[in-house]
């Protein structure tokens, strides 16, 4: 057996925007057009089609865990459907070296009227197991799902969480050589998710290749050595997960919402330690945030607001020129305003985003905003765990011996 588990070579996939042919009535004119000979070339795009994937190539070693990240509609699920054989690529080749199983829609094979026990067999065969294999792993599947008491209940009476648990339990026992996981870890409660992650690590240890698609970047980072970043069907970057995720976060999250016809806007936001420019910091370091705004017509009573958000979009901190003692700013037409804020990064390890706003002084009316205008990272530090750096120091740590005989507390607990 070769060392390659999966190879994609110049894969393209074209989709039609509408239905293929909705009825025979539509087919007849389409067919007659073809017969006359105005058949479009297979590689060309017309107004009714678009490329869902363009020129995607990568190769996975046996036993590797590989992440695919990107915004909604980037083409992640399309790649998985092509790899699993549900669809065929328009151009390019896909070579799969081994038994493949996909954790996509793990409960798709369930029938609501059948019991949990019956559905384990049904779904198992749908996912490619033989009945003998299911019989052998039946107890393990049931134990994993923790649904022993409900095995003889029709699954239509299951809660959606139970439904998903049963589906996942069957799917992770297929024992594939290549496992495709698409966002299924979001099922069940926290403990079940933990269990799924553990099971995936176990499957990986068994020398299986894993392709993992998720918006949970922390899970991607901890599970996959390498990742692929997709954007609108094109490969942006393939490399170590930490670097790919960094690229994704710094380019993907930026959104701007301008008032229509607004003639003043934030034009640039840069980060760096005083006097230079970089985006990775140690805890406690100083960082300068420079915001530039440009007005095309005269604007009075302005203030600049910055806000720092963590990766879950929780506001960590905000401040503004007004609160820091600057008066209302007036910009004449064509003038540029540059403000530099200096903050001390009393934060723990993580990814943070900077939002910049232009406000009306006093009334706080928002004129322009730039969400996630810049992103920075706080490196891991052995001194700081949690969310914030509370600047700890040790005041006291000394032993005391009891004066008399230790009667009540022989251990000497203070």
């Amino acid at each position, binding site marked *: 057996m070769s060392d390659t588990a999966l190879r994609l070579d110049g894969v393209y996939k074209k*989709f*039609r925007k509408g*239905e*293929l*042919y*909705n*009825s*025979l009535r539509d*087919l007849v004119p389409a067919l007659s057009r073809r017969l006359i000979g105005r058949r479009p070339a297979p590689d060309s795009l017309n107004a009714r089609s678009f490329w869902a994937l363009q020129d995607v190539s990568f190769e996975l070693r046996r036993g590797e865990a590989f992440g695919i990240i990107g915004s909604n509609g980037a083409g992640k699920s399309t790649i998985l*459907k092509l790899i*699993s*054989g*549900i*669809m*065929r690529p328009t151009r390019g080749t896909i070579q799969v070296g081994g*038994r*493949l199983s*996909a954790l*996509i*829609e793990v409960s*798709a*094979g369930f*029938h609501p*009227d*059948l019991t949990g026990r*019956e559905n384990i*067999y*049904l779904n198992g*065969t*749908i*996912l*490619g*197991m*033989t*009945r*003998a294999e299911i019989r052998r792993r039946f107890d393990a599947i049931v134990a994993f799902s923790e649904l022993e008491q409900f095995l003889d209940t029709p699954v239509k009476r299951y809660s959606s969480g139970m439904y998903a648990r049963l589906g996942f339990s069957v799917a992770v026992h297929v024992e594939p050589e290549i496992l495709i996981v698409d966002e299924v870890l979001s099922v069940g409660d926290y403990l079940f998710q933990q269990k799924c992650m553990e099971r995936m690590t176990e499957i990986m240890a068994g020398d299986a290749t894993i392709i993992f698609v998720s918006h949970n970047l922390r899970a991607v980072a901890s599970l996959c050595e390498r990742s692929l970043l997709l954007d609108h069907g094109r490969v942006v970057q393939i490399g170590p997960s930490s670097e790919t995720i960094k690229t994704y976060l710094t380019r993907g999250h930026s959104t701007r919402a301008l008032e229509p016809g607004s003639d003043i806007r934030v034009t640039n936001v840069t980060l760096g330690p005083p006097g230079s420019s970089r985006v990775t910091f140690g805890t406690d370091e100083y960082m300068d945030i420079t915001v530039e705004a440009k007005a095309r017509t005269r604007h009075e009573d302005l203030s600049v607001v910055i806000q720092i958000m963590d990766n879950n979009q929780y506001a960590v901190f905000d401040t503004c020129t007004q609160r820091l003692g600057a008066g209302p700013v007036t910009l004449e037409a064509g003038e540029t305003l540059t403000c530099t804020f200096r903050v001390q990064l009393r934060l723990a390890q993580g990814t943070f985003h900077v939002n910049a706003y232009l406000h009306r002084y006093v009334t706080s009316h928002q004129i322009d905003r730039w969400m996630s205008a810049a992103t920075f990272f706080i490196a891991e530090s052995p001194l700081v765990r949690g969310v914030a750096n509370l600047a700890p120091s040790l005041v006291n740590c000394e032993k005391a011996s009891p004066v008399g005989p230790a009667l009540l507390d022989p251990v000497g607990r203070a």
Partner: protein
Amino acid sequence: MHATLGRFTAKRDLLYMLTWREIRVKYSQSVMGIMWAILMPAVIVSAGVVVRFGFSTISGKPLEVDDVASVAVRAVPWAFFVATIRFATTSLIANSTLVTKVYLAREVFPVAAMLSQLIDAAVATLVVVILLTVLHVGVSVQLLWLPLLILILVVLTTGLGIVLSALSLFFHDVKYLVEVVLTFAIFFTPVFYEARMFGRWESLLLLNPVAPLLEGIANVVVRHAPPSLPWIGYSALCAVGIFAGSAAIFHALEPYFAESA
């Protein structure tokens, strides 16, 4: 080699489970349960007996035991044919989540629809056997033709079911067309009557590849006579041709299933 065998076993087990699901789901939560498998052919037999009674009243010939037996024997394969075509046509549409979300050999859906109907037909056959015993129809060596005739019918029906299931994913018209054709097909197929009643038009009627099979089955079971070999050959040729063509069309269309369902 081992992997290929494993894949084959997996496919066979999938077919088994899907067929089992069809039957299990059809008869769970129904008061009559498996009795439904008998009801459908029973209705056809009753209707046929009424029609034959009408024929005999008009023509003045008395209604014979053989006529009733003949209708009963034709009703079961005909009910199998109609129900299989109906269920197979919608089998991919009904399983569209599986077609679009999971990779599996898609031909199992129409084939499972056929198998579940075959099991219904087997149950109905038991009832027909009892009826034939009561009517003292008797047995003969001609019964040995029966497995071949049934095999041809199964191949023909499966072939049609496979291609109709694929086409109906792309054109919803197919489903309605099939319904219309099945509703009227009983008039063009010798179920209630016998092809020879049509005199010189008999050959025209037998061009319907199901017709020689029903005639043949009635011949070997009720009349203890061999089937008409040229016509059975014609049916067999049609069955193999339709099956091969259907399989080819199905596999040509399969890559587009997930985009169309």
